[in-house]
C-alpha cells in the first residue's frame, strides 16, 4: 500500500494512497446517461485531453511505480501481462489479458504461472516486444536504485528475497532464476508458495517490458519506451508536466482494453486542489476537455455542486477498495483488554466521523474491515453495533466490567497531515464521541513522517491510532494478509500487522485461500475470514471513502470501475 503524496492537501478526503488510484463506480452509468442529454454522446477520436492534477507524475518508470492495476496515466504508456477490465462498476474489478493471450495458466497448486504473449506487439520504435524484456523489466525493479514498487514479487518468486537487480550482477546473465523465457513469446513464473491471485499481480507496471538495450537506469523515467497507445513526448521537472502523443506502433487489434480516443494528452500537476475543482467546474477553454486523476471534490465544493444540475451531471462517483479505521496495539495497556477495545467500538459516533470526512456523499460508514464490494468478498457484519451516534451506555457497561468504572484516559495518535483520513479532524470527532462514554481522549498529532515511522514500527507503535488501508488489487488477499497474517509481522522494518496478530488458524486460512485459483470462491472465504477476525476488535472500521470527481464539459465516455474508483483515462474521449 503506497503512502499518499506528502504534500499537504486541502480537500477533506483528498486522493488516496495509490499513485493513480482511488474510487469505484457504483453510479457510473447513471452519470453517463445524464450527460448524453446535451447532444452527441458517442465518443470520437481526436482532440487533446488535459489532466489537471495536484501531485506530479513522479518516477515515471515502470519499475518504480506502485499502482493498482497498472495505474491511470502510466497505463497509457505501459502495457502489462494482464490488466484491469475497463468497465463500469463491479465488472471493472476483473482481471483481463493485456500483452498476454490469457490471464495466466497455473499449474495444479498455483505455484507455476505461464503466459504467452500476443503476436505483433511492438514498442514505440517499432521493435518487437519479447518475453525476455518482461523478465528484464521485473529484474530491474529489484535494483535498489529503482525501489518503490509493491513487495509481492520479492515475497512470491523463488530465490528472489536477496536479489538486487541486474545492475549488481553484471557477469551473471541469467538473472532471476524464478522467471523462465523458453521462447520470445513465453514466460514462466515459479512461485515459492501457491498464489491464486497471481493474475492480479501481473497487472502492476513491473510487468511492463523494458528492453535491456534501452535501459538507462534512473534516467529511464525521462523517456520510458512505450508499449501502449501513447508515448512520452515531453516530461518536464520530474513529471510535473507530461505530454503524451499517439504511439503509431501500437495497434488496437492487440489491445482490447484501451480506447485511446484523444490524439494528445497533456498532464499538468502541482495545482492546488481547490483550483483544480474550480477550473473543472468553470470548464472554460482547454479546461472543458479536462479531467483529474487525483483530486476529489471536497465537502465545500460538493455543497456547491449538489445545488447545480449542470455541475452535478459532470460529477463521476466511484468506490475504491479502501478502509479508514482505528488500530489498537494489544500489547499496550489498556488495549490489551478486549473489553476496552470493544467499549471503544461501541462508543464510536460514525456520523460525526463521516461528517468530518466530508459527509455521507464522500464517506460511507464502515463496520467491516473489508471494503463493501463483491470482489473483496464483502460479508456484512457489525459485531459491536454502535448505531449512527455510538452506544455510550453499552460502552460504559463494558468499561465497568473491565474495571474502568470511573472512566478512562487514552491517547489517540494521528497524523498532522491536513485533510487526510488520519487527520486531526477525524481524531477530534472521535475524541468528542468518546467523551460521551466517559473516555477522555488526548490527541497526539505527529508530523507525517514521524507518524508513519511510529505506527509502522513494532518497537514504537502506539496503543491507539488512526490508520487506513487500500487495495493493491480488488481482492481480500492483499487487504487482509499484510494486516492480519502473523508471518508478515516485520520486527526490524515497516510493519503493517499493527494488531500484532499471529494466530495459527488465521494464518492457515490465508494459506488455504491463496491456493484457490477460482477467485469467486476465494472472495467468499476472505469475507468469512474478515468477519471472524473482526470479533477480536483489533480495529474499529470507521468509513469507506467515496470519490466524487468533476470532469470538463466536453468529456465523454466516463468509465469508472470498482478497481480504481476513478475515471479511466484510456476510455475518455473529448470529441
Amino acid at each position: 500500500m503506497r503512502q499518499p503524496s506528502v504534500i499537504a492537501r486541502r480537500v477533506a478526503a483528498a486522493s488516496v494512497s495509490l499513485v493513480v488510484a482511488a474510487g469505484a463506480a457504483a453510479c457510473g452509468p447513471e452519470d453517463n446517461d445524464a450527460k448524453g442529454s446535451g447532444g452527441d454522446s458517442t465518443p470520437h477520436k481526436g482532440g487533446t485531453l488535459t489532466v489537471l492534477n495536484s501531485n506530479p507524475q513522479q518516477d515515471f518508470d515502470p519499475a518504480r511505480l506502485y499502482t493498482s492495476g497498472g495505474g491511470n496515466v502510466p497505463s497509457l504508456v505501459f502495457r502489462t501481462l494482464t490488466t484491469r477490465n475497463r468497465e463500469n462498476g463491479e465488472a471493472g474489478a476483473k482481471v483481463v489479458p493485456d500483452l498476454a493471450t490469457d490471464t495466466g495458466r497455473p499449474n495444479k497448486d498455483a505455484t507455476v504461472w505461464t503466459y504467452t504473449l500476443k503476436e505483433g506487439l511492438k514498442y514505440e520504435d517499432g521493435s518487437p516486444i519479447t518475453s525476455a524484456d518482461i523478465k528484464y523489466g521485473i529484474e530491474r525493479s529489484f535494483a535498489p536504485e529503482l525501489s518503490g514498487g509493491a513487495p509481492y514479487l520479492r515475497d512470491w518468486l523463488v530465490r528472489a528475497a536477496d536479489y538486487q537487480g541486474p545492475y549488481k550482477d553484471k557477469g551473471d546473465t541469467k538473472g532471476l532464476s524464478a522467471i523462465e523465457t523458453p521462447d520470445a513469446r513465453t514466460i514462466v513464473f515459479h512461485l515459492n508458495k501457491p498464489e491464486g491471485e497471481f493474475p492480479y499481480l501481473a497487472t502492476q507496471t513491473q510487468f511492463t517490458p523494458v528492453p535491456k538495450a534501452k535501459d538507462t537506469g534512473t534516467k529511464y523515467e525521462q523517456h520510458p519506451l512505450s508499449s501502449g497507445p501513447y508515448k512520452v513526448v515531453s516530461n518536464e521537472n520530474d513529471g510535473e508536466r507530461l505530454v503524451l502523443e499517439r504511439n503509431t506502433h501500437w495497434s488496437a487489434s492487440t489491445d482490447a482494453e484501451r480506447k485511446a480516443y484523444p490524439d494528445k494528452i497533456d498532464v499538468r500537476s502541482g495545482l492546488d486542489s481547490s483550483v483544480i475543482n474550480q477550473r473543472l467546474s468553470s470548464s472554460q477553454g482547454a479546461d472543458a476537455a479536462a479531467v483529474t486523476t487525483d483530486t476529489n471534490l471536497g465537502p465545500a465544493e460538493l455543497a456547491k455542486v449538489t445545488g447545480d444540475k449542470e455541475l452535478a451531471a459532470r460529477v463521476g462517483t466511484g468506490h475504491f477498495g479502501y478502509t479508514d479505521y482505528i488500530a489498537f496495539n494489544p500489547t499496550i495497556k489498556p488495549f490489551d483488554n478486549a473489553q476496552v477495545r470493544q467499549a471503544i467500538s461501541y462508543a464510536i459516533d460514525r456520523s460525526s466521523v463521516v461528517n468530518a470526512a466530508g459527509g455521507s456523499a464522500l464517506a460511507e460508514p464502515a463496520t467491516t474491515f473489508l471494503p463493501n464490494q463483491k470482489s473483496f468478498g464483502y460479508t456484512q457484519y457489525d459485531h459491536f453495533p454502535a448505531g449512527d451516534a455510538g452506544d455510550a451506555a453499552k460502552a460504559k457497561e463494558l468499561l465497568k466490567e473491565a474495571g474502568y468504572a470511573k472512566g478512562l484516559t487514552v491517547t489517540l495518535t494521528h497524523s498532522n497531515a491536513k485533510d487526510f483520513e488520519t487527520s486531526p479532524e477525524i481524531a477530534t470527532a472521535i475524541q468528542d464521541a468518546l467523551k460521551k462514554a466517559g473516555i477522555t481522549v488526548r490527541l497526539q498529532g505527529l508530523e507525517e513522517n514521524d507518524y508513519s515511522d511510529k505506527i509502522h514500527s513494532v518497537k514504537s507503535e502506539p496503543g491507539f491510532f488512526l490508520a487506513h488501508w487500500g487495495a493493491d488489487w480488488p481482492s481480500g488477499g492483499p487487504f487482509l494478509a499484510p494486516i492480519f497474517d502473523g508471518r508478515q509481522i516485520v520486527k526490524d522494518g515497516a510493519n503493517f500487522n499493527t494488531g500484532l496478530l499471529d494466530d495459527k488458524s488465521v494464518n492457515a486460512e490465508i494459506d488455504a485461500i491463496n491456493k484457490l485459483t477460482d477467485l469467486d470462491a476465494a472472495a467468499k472465504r476472505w469475507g468469512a475470514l474478515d468477519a471472524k477476525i473482526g470479533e477480536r476488535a483489533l480495529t474499529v472500521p470507521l468509513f469507506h471513502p467515496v470519490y466524487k470527481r468533476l470532469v470538463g464539459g466536453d468529456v465523454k465516455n466516463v468509465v469508472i470501475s470498482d478497481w480504481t474508483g476513478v475515471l479511466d483515462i484510456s476510455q475518455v474521449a473529448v470529441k
Partner: protein
Amino acid sequence: MSAPGASGARQFWRRLRTQRAALVAAVVVALLVLVALAAPLLTAIEGQDPTTYHPSLVDSARGGVPIGSFGGVSADHWLGVEPQTGRDLFARLVYGARVSLGVALAATVVQVAIGVVVGVAAALGSRLVDQLLSRFTDVIVAMPLMIMALALLAIVPSSFPRPVLVALVIGLIGWGSIAKIVRAQTLTLKGLDYVAAARLSGWGTWRIARRELLPGIAAPVITYAALLVPVDITVEAALSFLGVGVKPPTPSWGQMLTAADVWYQAAPQYLLLPAGALFVTVLALTVLGDGVRTALDPRAASRLRVGTGRKREAKA
C-alpha cells in the same frame, strides 16, 4: 531626537491621546484582549463550547454544510456553526482569539528578547563579537523563514505544547531585523555624550548598558514590536495553511481561515468571520503601533500625523 522614557510617560500618554485613530485602535485592541481573556465566560453565556460536535446541525449529504440560514445562526449558535462538524463558530472565534493573540504576543516577546540581546551585545562587544553576531544575524535573515519553521516544528516532540512551540519557532527565526535595529540604535546611543559621561563617572560596561542604553532603545523597540505583533499573527495563519500551525481541536484564526477558504461559496460566513477578525486585529494593532511610534518619537510626530486635530509643535 531621542525619546523620553519614564520621564516622558505623561507626555507619551498626552501625545497618544491626541491621536484619535490610535485611541480607537487602542480601544479595539483592549476589547480583543478582553474577549480573548473572557472566552470561557462568553461561551458560557452562549451556552456552547468550541469542541463539541453537532452532527445534527449540518447537512451530511451536502458535504456537511450548516443547516439553516446564515450558516446556521440561531439563538443557541450566535454566529452559526462550522461546516462538517457543527462546532459553534462563536466559541471557536473567541477561543481562536486567545491562541492567535497569545501566539503572536509570545512570539514577539521572544523576537524582541533575542533581538535586543544580540543587537546590544554586537554593538557593545569587541570587533570580533560584533562581526560574529552580525554575520549570524545575516544568516538568520537569509534563511527562508517558512522553511525553517516547517523543519523545526517537525523536530520537536509532539508532547511539547503546540501554541508555545509555534510562538517559540516564530520567535526564534524572526528576530533578525530587530537585532539589526537595536544594534544600529545602540551604536548611535553609544556615541552620545551622556554615555561618555557615564563612563567617566566610573561605571562598567554592563551597568552602562542597563542604565543608559536599554532605556534609549526602548522607544524604537516598542514601536517595532507593536508592528511585529500583527505580522506574527499572519505568520501563524500561514503556518496553519502549510499544515504546521496550532493543532486541532485548539482553534486559531489562521487555522479557521485555512479550513474555511474552500467554503467561500457554500458557507461564506465561515470564511468571513476569521478573516474579518484577523483584519480588524491587524488593522487595530498597526494603527496603534503607528500611534505608539508617534507618541514615543516626537520628531516622528510631525511627519507621521495620523488623523487631524493635532497642533503643530511650535518651532522657533
